[in-house]
C-alpha cells in the first residue's frame, strides 16, 4: 500500500553521504544542495499523516524508527532546514568527508527525533557523537586532536550513563523499551515543590543524566565550549544546532515536568552568561551562550505545562536558526581573517559590513528584540514560569536575558566590528565579506529569524499544544510585553556603554570544569609514568632471576623441536597470513580517528541494509 510507504530522512542523508565521494567534481555542488533539500521535502511530506512507521522486529523487540507526531515533526522540520542552510554555508569546502561527517551527524539527530524506543535512540545517539567529533578533528590544528578526544570521552561517558539507565529500566519494568514520558518523571504539575526534586527512580535518573549531558547542563557542560570553539568554521555551524537541541527534544519527550530541570535550567542560563563576560574568543562566547539559551529550554521542560513545552520547542526552533546565524557570522570572520579572539580583532565594519549586519540580526534575535525570532519564543517559557508562580525562576531567566543582549547583541558586534582596532596589518588586509555561498546561507537564516518574529503563525502553528499556542499568540505582541522587553533591553544597553571599559576583552582563558578531566588526566599519566612503571620494572627484574633461567633451558629444547618438526608445516600457513595482513594493513593507517570513522561507516551501512533491505 502506498500510504504505508515511509522514508526515513536519515536514510536519505546517510545514503547521500556515501555516494558523495564518488561523484565527479562538477556534480558535487548541486548534489550538496539537493540531498538535504530532499530530506527536508521528505519531512514536509509527513505532515499529512501522523503515526508510527518503520517498525522492525529485532530479536524480541519491535523497534520503531519513525514515530511521527507534532513534537517530532517540528524538530525534524527545523533540523532538516538547518541542514540545508549549513551545507550551503559549507559549499566551498572541497573535502568530501567534512560533508559526510556533517550529514551523518544530522542523520543521527533525526534518528533520535523519530525513534520510538530506547534501542534505536541509543544507536543514533552514538552515531551523533561519533560523527560530530570529526567536525572538530578536521580543523587540523595541533590541539584539535586532543579536543576531539575529550569531546568523545565525555560523550561516551554520557552514552554509558544513558545505556545503564535504559538497561536498568528494561529490567525494572519487565521489558519496556518505549521512549515516552518516564512515568515517575512528572512531578507535581500543579506547582513547583522542592521536596519532589530527587523523587525519581535510579533508571530514570540515569537516563536523565545521559540526556542532560548532551544538553550541556552544568556540571556536565564543559565539553561544549571546548569543542565548539575548536570545530571547523562550517562544523561549528552544524554542532551548535544539533546535539543540544536533540537533547532538549529527548527531555521534552521523556522528562517533562521533572522539577529538578527547572533548577538546573535556571543555573545554566546564568552560568553561561557569567562565563560569556569573561570570554575572549568570539566562538567560545557564543558556545557559552548556547548553554545559557538551552537553559531556558531545559527549564521549560522542567516546568512541563503545555505552555512551557510549547515554549521549549519554539525556543529550540528559533535558537537553531539564530545561533546558526551567529556562528556563521563569527565563523566568516574566522574564515576570512584566521582570527576569532576579540583581542586580535576590532573595527572591521569597514571591511566586513554584510557579515556585521547578519551577525547583528542573529544578536537581536537571541536577545529577544521585538520583531525578531527570540521575542516570540523565549518569552513563552518565562511567561509559563510566571503562570506557574515559580517567580524566582521567571525573574532569574529575565535577568539572564539581559545578559544575553549584553554579550551577543552588544559585546560580540562591538568588539569585532567597532571598538578598538586590534587587528594586525595581515588580519586587516585579509578581512573582507565572505564568499557568496556563506552570505547566501546567512541571508536565508537572517530572513527566517525576522520572518518568525514578524509572522507568528508560521512557528506557532507547528507547536505541539495548539490551544495554548493560539492563546499566547494574542498576548505576545501586546503592549505590556513589548514595553517590558524594550525597557529591559535598552536599559541593558545603557549599562553596557557606561561600563564598557570593564568589558574590554582580556587575552586570557577561563578555567571551567573541564579542568578536572584535563588536569586529572595528567595526574593519571604521572601515576602511569612514575609509580606504576617503577612497580612494573621491579616485577620484571624479579621475574628475570626467578623465571628466566629455568625458562631458557626449556626453551632450548623446544626450539630444537620447533626447528626440526613444526616449521615445515607453519611456513606455508605464515605466508598466507602475511598476505592477508598486508591487505588489512592498507586499510589501517594506525590513527584511531580513521579506524573509528571506518567502524562508524560500516555500522551505518550495516544498519541501513538490515533495516531497509
Amino acid at each position, binding site marked *: 500500500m502506498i500510504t504505508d510507504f515511509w522514508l526515513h530522512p536519515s536514510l536519505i542523508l546517510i545514503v547521500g553521504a556515501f555516494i558523495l565521494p564518488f561523484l565527479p567534481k562538477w556534480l558535487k555542488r548541486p548534489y550538496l544542495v539537493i540531498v538535504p533539500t530532499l530530506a527536508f521535502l521528505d519531512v514536509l511530506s509527513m505532515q499529512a499523516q501522523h503515526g508510527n512507521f518503520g517498525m522492525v522486529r529485532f530479536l524480541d523487540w519491535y523497534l520503531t524508527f519513525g514515530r511521527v507526531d507534532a513534537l517530532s515533526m517540528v524538530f525534524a522540520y527545523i533540523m532538516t532546514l538547518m541542514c540545508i542552510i549549513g551545507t550551503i554555508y559549507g559549499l566551498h569546502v572541497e573535502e568530501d568527508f567534512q560533508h559526510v561527517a556533517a550529514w551523518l551527524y544530522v542523520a543521527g539527530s533525526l534518528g533520535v527525533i523519530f525513534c520510538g524506543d530506547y534501542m534505536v535512540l541509543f544507536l543514533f545517539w552514538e552515531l551523533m557523537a561519533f560523527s560530530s567529533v570529526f567536525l572538530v578533528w578536521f580543523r587540523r590544528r595541533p590541539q584539535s586532536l586532543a579536543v576531539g578526544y575529550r569531546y568523545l570521552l565525555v560523550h561516551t561517558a554520557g552514552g554509558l550513563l544513558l545505556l545503564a539507565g535504559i538497561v536498568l529500566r528494561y529490567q525494572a519494568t519487565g521489558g519496556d523499551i518505549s521512549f515516552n514520558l518516564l512515568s515517575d518523571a512528572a512531578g507535581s504539575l500543579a506547582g513547583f515543590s522542592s521536596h519532589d526534586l530527587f523523587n525519581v527512580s535510579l533508571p530514570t535518573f540515569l537516563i536523565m543524566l545521559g540526556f542532560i549531558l548532551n544538553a550541556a547542563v552544568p556540571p556536565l557542560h564543559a565539553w561544549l565550549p571546548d569543542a565548539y570553539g575548536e570545530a571547523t568554521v562550517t562544523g561549528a555551524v552544524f554542532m551548535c544546532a544539533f546535539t543540544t537541541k536533540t537533547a532538549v527534544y529527548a527531555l521534552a519527550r521523556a522528562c517533562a515536568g521533572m522539577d529538578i530541570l527547572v533548577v538546573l535550567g535556571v543555573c545554566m542560563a546564568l552560568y553561561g552568561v557569567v562565563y560569556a563576560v569573561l570570554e575572549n574568543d568570539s566562538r567560545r562566547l557564543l558556545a557559552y551562550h548556547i548553554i545559557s539559551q538551552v537553559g531556558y529550554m531545559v527549564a521549560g521542560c522542567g516546568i512541563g505545562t503545555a505552555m512551557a513545552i510549547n515554549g521549549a520547542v519554539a525556543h529550540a526552533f528559533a535558537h537553531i536558526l539564530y545561533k546558526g546565524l551567529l556562528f556563521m557570522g563569527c565563523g566568516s570572520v574566522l574564515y576570512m581573517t584566521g582570527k576569532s579572539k576579540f583581542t586580535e580583532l576590532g573595527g572591521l565594519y*569597514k571591511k566586513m559590513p554584510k557579515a556585521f549586519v547578519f551577525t547583528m540580526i542573529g544578536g537581536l534575535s537571541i536577545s529577544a528584540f521585538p520583531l525578531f525570532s527570540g521575542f516570540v519564543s523565549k518569552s513563552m517559557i518565562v*511567561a509559563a514560569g510566571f503562570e506557574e508562580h515559580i517567580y524566582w525562576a521567571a525573574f532569574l531567566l529575565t535577568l539572564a536575558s539581559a545578559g544575553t543582549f549584553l554579550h551577543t547583541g552588544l559585546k560580540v558586534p562591538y568588539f569585532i566590528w567597532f571598538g578598538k582596532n586590534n587587528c594586525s596589518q595581515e588580519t586587516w588586509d585579509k578581512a573582507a565579506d565572505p564568499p557568496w555561498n556563506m552570505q547566501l546561507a546567512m541571508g536565508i537564516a537572517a530572513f527566517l529569524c525576522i520572518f518568525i518574529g514578524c509572522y507568528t503563525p508560521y512557528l506557532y502553528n507547528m507547536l505541539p499544544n495548539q490551544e495554548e499556542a493560539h492563546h499566547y499568540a494574542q498576548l505576545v505582541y501586546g503592549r505590556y510585553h513589548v514595553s517590558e522587553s524594550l525597557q*529591559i533591553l*535598552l*536599559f*541593558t544597553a545603557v549599562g553596557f556603554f557606561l561600563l564598557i571599559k570593564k568589558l574590554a576583552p*582580556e587575552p586570557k582563558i577561563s*578555567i571551567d570544569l573541564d579542568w578536572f578531566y584535563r588536569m586529572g588526566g595528567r595526574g593519571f599519566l604521572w601515576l602511569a609514568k612514575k609509580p606504576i612503571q617503577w612497580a612494573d620494572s621491579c616485577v620484571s627484574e624479579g621475574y628475570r632471576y626467578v623465571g628466566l633461567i629455568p625458562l631458557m633451558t626449556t626453551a632450548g629444547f623446544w626450539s630444537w623441536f620447533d626447528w626440526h618438526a613444526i616449521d615445515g608445516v607453519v611456513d606455508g600457513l605464515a605466508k598466507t597470513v602475511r598476505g592477508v595482513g598486508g591487505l588489512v594493513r592498507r586499510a589501517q593507517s594506525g590513527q584511531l580517528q580513521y579506524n573509528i570513522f571506518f567502524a562508524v561507516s560500516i555500522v551505518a551501512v550495516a544498519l541501513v541494509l538490515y533495516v531497509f533491505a
Partner: protein
Amino acid sequence: MLVKLIDFFRDRLKLVIRLSYVGLALLVVWDVLFVSKEHAHTAVEHIPGFWAVFGFIACVVIIIVSKWYGHLGIMTREDYYDN
C-alpha cells in the same frame, strides 16, 4: 553604502547619543502613561519604570559579579593547559 551609513552616524555620535537618551525617556513615559498593567504577573511590576530599572541593574550586576568571579583566579594565562 552600508559603510557610509555607519560612518554617517559615527560622525554625529554626540547627536545619536542624545537622541538615544530622548528615546529611552519617551519609552518610560509611554510605559507609565499608556501601557495597561493588567498583564503584569506580580505586584512589583506596577512600579513605574520597573523593567527599565530591572534591565539596568541586571546588566551592572552581571558585569560586576562576573568580573569579580573571573579575577578570583578563574581567568588565567592562555597557555595554562600547555605542557
